[in-house]
């Protein structure tokens, strides 16, 4: 990814990146006739499904191991260039329950408190659901990741209020055991400072590095309007031990990528539309090599959006999900997000923006 300090837009026009769902608009206003450029939109809707499936990070197919083998040059470290997140293994409990390979874990707060396993038919319809009794123990959940054994690691995320998500439990990583399907706390990560009553959030995102067998989790617990007190943790997925931490950073979405110059953890800031990365050593620990990857602060349509998800695919694709986040419990009925898709420029060890798509969830 490359630094982007200045915005540009199509000449003589300003099609906002913060566009609004046509269907939602119709809910409020009388419908307007569709664009005559319907062909391009139709294509885009088709394309969106792909984007959603690869980037949403909330619903993942659990029994479809992605064992892609990047065919890319070796980086400065021992790892192949490409995503470090592509080893996710099958969760055995899914088969035990008799659910098919078209199954997904759903943590969307508007539909489930906790998590639910959904089995889908060929058309994507939910044909049945399952909720283990332990899956609601943490209240509402958000981001999750699997390791190579099919264990699932989840973080709690409050929804509308904190009745089910007490802030003092917001820094607990939960683990669903691959074999039993039972969820239990893995670790309660220590914040830098005391809980701040104005900030109901703790963990925001989680990712897994298949090479160093490390969990990484971003937390903003203790941060206030005037103080950055968040941390990014490196955690042992088996023991919950904190191996390393990067302090004084309020990070939202995180992801690990093996580039030509080595392994880096990318993180989006929770306060501004900026993406940074930090180099990781061979054990997955943080180094002092931190760099600014991209800045979108000057683009008015991105002014309120932050990178909530950073997902690498294969050897050369990066999808960043941008959404509004204000450290409050506003839960808009129309949730607008922007998906930025990048391709890795191996020659320069940077990322080239390929497309931007606005969606309403």
């Amino acid at each position: 990814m490359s630094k982007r300090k200045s915005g540009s837009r199509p000449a003589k026009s300003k099609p906002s990146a913060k566009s609004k769902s046509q269907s939602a608009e119709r809910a409020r206003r009388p419908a307007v006739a569709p664009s005559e450029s319907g062909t391009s939109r139709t294509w885009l809707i088709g394309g969106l499904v792909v984007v959603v499936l690869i980037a949403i990070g909330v619903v993942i197919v659990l029994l479809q191991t992605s064992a892609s083998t990047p065919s890319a040059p070796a980086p400065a470290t021992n790892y192949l260039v490409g995503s470090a997140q592509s080893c996710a293994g099958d969760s055995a409990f899914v088969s035990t329950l008799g659910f098919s390979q078209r199954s997904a874990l759903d943590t969307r707060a508007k539909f489930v408190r906790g998590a639910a396993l959904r089995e889908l038919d060929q058309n994507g319809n939910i044909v049945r659901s399952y909720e283990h009794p332990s899956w609601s123990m943490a209240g509402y959940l958000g981001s999750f990741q699997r390791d190579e054994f099919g264990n699932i690691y989840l973080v709690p995320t409050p929804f509308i209020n904190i009745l089910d998500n007490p802030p003092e439990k917001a820094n607990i990583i939960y683990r669903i055991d691959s074999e039993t399907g039972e969820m239990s706390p893995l670790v309660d990560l220590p914040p830098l400072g005391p809980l701040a009553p104005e900030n109901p959030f703790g963990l925001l995102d989680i990712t897994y590095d298949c090479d160093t067998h490390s969990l990484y989790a971003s937390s903003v617990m203790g941060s206030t309007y005037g103080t950055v007190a968040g941390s990014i943790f490196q955690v042992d997925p088996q023991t919950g031990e904190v191996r390393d931490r990067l302090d004084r950073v309020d990070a939202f979405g995180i992801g690990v990528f093996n580039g030509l110059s080595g392994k880096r953890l990318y993180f989006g800031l929770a306060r501004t539309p900026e993406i940074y990365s930090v180099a990781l050593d061979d054990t997955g620990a943080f180094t002092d090599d931190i760099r600014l990857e991209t800045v979108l602060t000057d683009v008015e349509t991105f002014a309120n959006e932050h990178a909530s998800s950073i997902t690498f695919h294969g050897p050369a694709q990066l999808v960043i999900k941008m959404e509004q986040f204000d450290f409050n419990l506003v839960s808009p009925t129309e949730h607008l997000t922007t998906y930025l898709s990048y391709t890795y420029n191996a020659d320069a060890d940077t990322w080239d923006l390929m497309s931007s798509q606005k969606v309403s969830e």
Partner: protein
Amino acid sequence: MKQLRPLLLLLGLMLLVAACQPASVDQSTATPASVSLPTLEPTLPDSGVLAPRATPDLAQLPLLAAHLARVQAALQETIPIVPIEDGLDDEQRQAQSIALSEQLFRRYARDPQTQAPFRSEIMGIYPLRASDIVEKTAVCAANPCYRVEMYNYALNFFVAAVADLREGRVLDVIGYEDAQPDIPASLTQVALEIAVHAPEVQEALGYTPETSDAVMASTKTSLNSTVCERSRHLCVAPTFVVGERALWAIVDLTDGRLVGVRWTAVGSSVAITEKRLEDETIMRQFCQQNTPLEQAGWSLNYTLTSSDGLRISEVTYQGTPIFDSVKLVDWHVSYSATDGFGYSDAVGCPVFSQAAVIAIEPPRVTDMVVDGEVVGFALEQGFWSELWPLPCNYFYKQRYEFYNDGRFRPLAINVGRGCGNDGTYRPVTRIALAGSASTFSEWGDSGWQAWTSEGWRLAADVSSNDDGYSFQISSVNSSFYVAPSTGQFGDGGRGDNAYVYVTLHHADRDEGDSDMPTIGPCCNTDYQQGPERFIDPTPEAITDNPLVLWYVAQIKNDDTPGAEYCWADTVLEDGLYTDREYPCPSGPMFVPTGIADANAG
């Protein structure tokens, strides 16, 4: 089952709305250098000021007046679109004429159901660039083509037509939702006029600027790009550079008013938008500090909280302490059609808060006038969901009424619209009485009967005296009757059917003095709304003690035409959608016993 939804529904009904266009970012290839972790931006001491909402004074703004006159005239025309009249060459004029003749283009200027006109305006006419040519406009590689851009103010919708001058027809029409085109020179002048006449701009600059002062040397333009993402209005930002600082004046061209001003350092790359200005200003001025207020014999402080709305504290009347604090802890919203369906909303600060519905405008102090006479003043604060009045979005108000004669009323007001017409709203108000020795009484068969221990009552179950009062608070320094609303206050309220709780105010135990998290679930239909948690298992004695009074109104909404209550809608007027509000006010009146008894006598 509702859960049997297609995959796309499972994924949140994600719909593509804008289109696969390159993001508004450029693509350099420089390898990033190592940097330090980011730190918070330094805060400028006078960073932002929000302008009060007011109808523009058209006598002072002749360009705006003329523009609005053109808009009104256009709305009466067959083609209700304001064209560009000045500064066009022959080809641009021809392109505009071709576009305005095209039904596929014009139809965006009317409501498709009612055919009522939308306020629409041609914003620009530009030669089509080679890079803009697509299959539908391939002929433009050889023919002279223009892109004619129109903005629909009502829908915040931007539509462009590609006009082929040689063939005299429109080749393509493309729409962009929630988007704005660049504005023409005439509107730029209107924006500058609004900015330079705004008191907030003049005060910030320290002088009355000329329109020519708004020139950014770096861009050779007078306007910065901005967005009004909350109001979804057409906004631009005339910018005035003074030394090393730049003053952004965000102008709303839909309403013809200044949104506010904010200083930045020259060279700052941070875009200033309506939301950013509102959030920062409210946080710094009202969330992070108390504001003192003295008026009509009343003295108090007020502040916006993280989750308890607008809190007033240290309230005195004519020097006598009346309340330690008053605040709105929760809104519980339940819908009867679906058992257990509803929300428990906190209201509060726009960022870094536990609020689900937030303040996006500052609190206001207004006079209360009855029969032409000022009888007191009101302190009012609104809390909005950003998409209100769309379904499942909310608009709550708090209003504290302070009367010259010592009466006081804390109101919790809902303005819809919620998720259905079967909603019941239960605002939870906490009132901490001043003083260490208060007694709470209710009217009964034998007159005023003091509550001896913590407890609760449904107000409707308590009889009232001849003057209509059911409860009384008495202390050494002051005594009040407390009158729950039964619709007697002439404010449109239909009665609260309220629960009243009294708990001991502990000095050594925080039972709500600090900011409270959500204290109750959405959907309990009985007294269990949260305050009962502070009644000990063995209720504590409360006679002649410091007390907290809790008041939970129960208000049923109604969308029956002509009888709407706790409801909101939109109507198309003069080409724009305007909100129709049907508020349901609730809250008890505190009446000094001396006044009440004198009136009764």
